Structures are given as C-alpha cells and as structure tokens.
C-alpha cells in the first residue's frame, strides 16, 4: 500500500529543497569544479589551451612571489577595511538600537537606500568627490587653501574608502540584529546591581553583540578581499587586488588555466577564513542561543 503524504514527509522535504539544490549544483558546484579542472590544463598561447594535464599553473603560483605578494596585500586591505567597518559601523548600529525615536524602521530604511543605486555608479561618484576636478579639490583651490589639487584618488586610501562606503550597511545591519536580540532587562539588571550605563555596556551589551560584530567583520573582509570593481575604478595599477589580477589574467592575457588557478586560490583562502570563523563563532552562537 502506498504511504500517505504527510506535512513532515521526508520526500516532501526533498522535493521542496530540490530546486535550490539543483540551482546550487548546476550554477555553483559544477562551475567551480570545471574551474578546478581548468587549473590543470596546459596554457599554449593567449586564448589557446590544451587539455593535457599539468601542474605547471600551480607550480607557477606557488613559486612566483608575485602572486603571494598580491594575495597578502589583498588580505591586508580586506582586513583594514573590515576593521574600519567594525569601528565605524558599531556606533550607528548602537544608535539605531538605543534610540527612542518612534520610527526606527525609517533609520533602517536609510541603510538600505544606497542599495537602490547601482554599486558601480556609487563607486564612480567618488571620482566627483575626490578627483582633481572633484568637489573637495575645487573647493579648497577656490578658497586658496591649496595651490595644487590633492592626490586623493587612485591610491589605496581611495580604494578602502570606496569599499567602506559599500560595506558599512552590511556591518551596521549585522551588529544591529545582534543588539536587537539582547534582552533589555539584562541591562536593567546590571544597572540595578551598581553599573553605570558605560559599565553596563561593557559588561552586557558589548559582549552580547560580539557575534553580530564578528559576522559583520567576516562579511566585510570576504567582500573586500574579493572585490575587483572598487580597486579598478578608484585605485591605480599599484592598488590592484587579487580580483583584478584574475581579471587581467583571464581577460588580458587570455590565460584561462592560470586565471582559473588564481580564482581557486582566492576561493580556498576566503573559504578557510569563513570556515575558521564558523567554527569559532558557532560556539559562541550556541552560548548565546541557549542563554536567550
């Protein structure tokens, strides 16, 4: 006899998950697998490669310090960006959480508004602000404060600034969500036992919002280290990141096997960070979850 379908039928669960699963397999796992396969192909000349298997690409990556230098620099820029996001993002998140303003949703909406404009256009807008003919330089020149335009664009600072601009909302939202999950009577309890509000923040609010801060840091780090549009638009050739290197290798040199190798390297490195984070934060999330 055929078994009747129930709401929690495992077959039903599989059917519901199937579309996402297929999507992930065909558009994520398979392409990455193909890329991984490509790393062992032989590069002949621009745009030409053969399927003769070789470890030459990996050998080149591992021996040429040009690549590891790029990787380290990318990680450094990503870490600086993430740290700045953490410092600058915590305060607005705390403010939105703590405010007694009745229309909190409006403040949260303001965080999302930038996403309505294309990311590329938002990045371009910095050229109008920081460029030689940009608002700041023109204003300072007119005021006679400087004689020469300040070189604010096409350097690492501009790249980090552009990434901050695009990543801050992610940080603020992450911190806000974790703040919002804090039971406010904990703060009342701390205050009643002798804490000033600053001490209550240090004892209760800050430690309980750390999971959100850590999640925001990871997100910002991965997105910054994986970015390629921002350094392309706001950085000079020296400020290129690993993403730009991959782009150049594939689109410029038409060296697909090496490009694939570099892509897989970035994928593995950022994946490792995410894995380490999940392991560590997974623990404190459990503590938090059980405590709530």
């Amino acid at each position, binding site marked *: 006899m055929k078994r009747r379908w129930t709401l929690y039928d495992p077959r039903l669960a599989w059917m519901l998950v199937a579309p996402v699963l297929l999507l992930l397999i065909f558009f994520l796992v398979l392409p990455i697998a193909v890329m991984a396969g490509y790393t062992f192909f032989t590069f002949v000349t621009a745009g030409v490669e053969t399927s003769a298997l070789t470890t030459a690409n990996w050998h080149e990556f591992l021996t040429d310090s040009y690549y590891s230098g790029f990787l380290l620099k990318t990680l450094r820029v990503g870490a600086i960006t993430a740290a700045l996001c953490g410092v600058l993002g915590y305060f607005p998140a705390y403010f939105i959480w703590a405010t007694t303003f009745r229309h909190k949703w409006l403040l949260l909406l303001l965080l999302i508004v930038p996403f309505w404009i294309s990311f590329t256009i938002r990045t371009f807008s910095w050229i109008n602000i920081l460029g030689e003919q940009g608002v700041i330089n023109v204003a300072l020149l007119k005021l006679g404060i400087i004689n020469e335009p300040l070189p604010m664009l096409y350097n690492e600072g501009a790249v980090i600034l552009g990434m901050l601009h695009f990543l801050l909302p992610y940080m603020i939202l992450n911190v806000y969500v974790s703040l919002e999950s804090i039971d406010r009577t904990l703060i009342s309890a701390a205050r009643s036992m*002798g804490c*000033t509000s600053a001490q209550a923040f240090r004892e209760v609010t800050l430690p309980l919002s750390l999971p959100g801060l850590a999640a925001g840091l990871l997100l910002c780090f991965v997105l910054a280290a994986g970015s390629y549009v921002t350094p392309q638009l706001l950085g000079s050739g020296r400020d290129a990141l690993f993403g730009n290197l991959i782009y150049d290798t594939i689109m410029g040199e038409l060296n697909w096997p090496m490009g694939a190798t570099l892509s897989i390297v970035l994928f593995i490195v950022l994946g490792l960070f995410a894995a380490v984070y999940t392991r560590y934060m997974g623990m404190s999330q459990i503590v938090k979850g059980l405590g709530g």
Partner: protein
Amino acid sequence: MPDSQGTTLHPRPVLAGAAGASAAAEANSPAVEFRDIDIAYGKFVAVRDFSLSIRKGSFVTLLGPSGCGKTTILRSIAGLVDISGGQIMIDGRRVDDVPIYKRNIGLVFQSYALFPHKNVFDNVAFGLKYRNVPKPEIARKVGKALEMVRLPGSEKKLPSQLSGGQQQRIALARAIVFEPQVLLLDEPLSALDANMREEMRVEIKKIQKETGITAIFVTHDQEEALSMSDRIVVMNAGAVEQIGTPEEVYEAPATAFVADFLGKANMLAGTVRGSDRKTAVVVLGTGQTINVACPRPLADGSKVTVVVRPQKFSVGAGASANRLTGRVVSASYLGGSAIYEIDIGGKASLRANAPITGRVLREGETVDLGFDAEGCVLLDEGGQRIS
C-alpha cells in the same frame, strides 16, 4: 545561621554617595515610603497619587490585573522609571534623584535576566564586584548565597545549563547577595510551571524570613499574594483599591473590584427594606429576601450589593439561613469539595464551593443554598464597603 545573618545584613554596604540620611532617621523610618507619587508616560498616567509605607522586614505584595501600574511602581523604586510627582523614600532618604546604580536594590525579574555569557558565579558576584568587595569575601558570600537558594556547587555552570526554576533561584541569590535595602520581585514566578511555582513560593518566603530583608512582590496571581504576603496592596487602574493583610482583603474587601479580583466573589444586587444597627433586610433583584449583617442602619430603598464568597454558601440540606433556591447549571468535582454554578434567576449564576456530604449534585437539579447573615460583605451603590 541566623546569628551570622543578623550581623552581616544590617551594616549594609554603603555605596559611593549613598550616605545621606543620619543613622537615627534610618532606624525608625519605614523601609520604603511612597508619598503621593504620580507616574506618567507622556499623556498616559500609569500611577496616580500612590502613597504607601512599607515596614522594615515585611513582605508586601502589589496585586492587580496587568496594566494596573504595579510593575511601574516597582520599577520606580529601582529607578528604572522616573516619577513625575511625589517622593520615594528608602530608609528615610529621598531617592528621586539618586541614579539607579547607587540605590542598593535587589531586583528579580520575571524573565530571570541572568547574564547568558557569564557563569553562575560571575552572575551572583556581579553586584559585589561593583561594590568593591575583596575577592575572597566575594567567593564566601557567593557560596553562602548559593547555599541559601539550595544550589551550592553550581558556580561554573552557565545559566543555559539550568532549569527555569534553578535560573530563578540564581537570580534570587544574585539579588540578595549584596544585602540590598529592598528586594523587588517582579512577577518572579510567572514564567515557571505550576509545580515549580509553588515550590519557589515557599522558598522565596523562607529566604525573605531568614534574611529579614524587606521584600516588595508584584503579581497578578491572588493565590501567590494571599499565601506569601504580610500585607497586600490591591491595585486597579493606577490607584490603590485596598491595603490590608491577606485575611482583611479577602474577608472584608473594601470595594467591588477587590471582591471580584480576589476569589471571584458572588455579587448579589438588591434594595434595602428595613434596617437597624446590626442587620438589614435586602430584597434581591431576583426577588428573594435575605437578612444580612450590617454595621450601621441603612436608608430604606438604598441600593446595595451583597458579596458572598463561594465557600460561604452551604448547599442542600445544610442551607438554613437566607435560603435561596436555584438550579444547578454546572458541577465540578474537586475531590474534597465541589464547585457548583447555580442559577437563582439573576443575570449571572452563583458560584458555590461546598464540601461534599453524600453525593455530588448533577446539572439540572433543583437545590437550596444559603449563607449566614455574617458571611457576607455589603457594598454601597458606588461599590465601596459599608462600614
């Protein structure tokens, strides 16, 4: 242990800036005193003209339905809510301007409010740490407090590893360990299941007695209030309805609200037909005539409400005085007694809780019920007790 507590509890730790009143003023003054306080949230007045004086070492309950202002008053003592008028005195010292962290008050919340990221020891030690108590002293006091709540050895556990009842005990230990002037308990039993609740009720009362701490307890549960309190403050809509011992508020409710809120009393509306200094004859709205005790003569024709507790009714053969006849609408068997809903013709049926003698009555049966002339309270037209 009582001797050691006697010595450790009374010289309370004095917080920075907390030493204001002279020792002489403290000795005779009530633990907590409210003088005509008003508390408003914007235009909404949560508490109006609230005055209350709480003796040292007593257990006072603020009882009322949700939204009656009882929690607001509790929070105002702690400084979590600002009062908009009047004065609050703790040990004879005005605290209106004392910030919350200098008030030296123990708080127990309905939600336990244990710090989830700190273990039991750090939770209990929290208040001591902020009173600059030396470390060995902290360890000793925490150990003693944990013993008092019968959870010794749980120092290393995280709150999440404890059951609800255990968490609430830790919260209690945390609130009393620094020997506060007042212990505030904000519905501490509401989040517990029924069995746990009764156990904790006994426990809280025991610890309060042992330590001699002044406790203010907020609840909407009349059973908790009646069983734990030295005095009960019955509140409704931001104002006090009655203040009295549990017996007083139960046996002699001052208002219709108190009569109804505590123990669902029966309210029989009627008109006075003849009265002397001790009794009154009342013709009920349903037509029956009854004799009730009355502290003073009442004018003929004045409208009154006769309040009768369900257990003051005798049902069946035992019904002699003030005999009313009705039909059983429902019967709930409770083992030792039974609760009957009896329709005597009025809008609401009467509720009687009678010991079982012989058999349990069935729905639809006609039955007599009666009550003694002294077994009731008379309310006037405005719902106030006639005295």
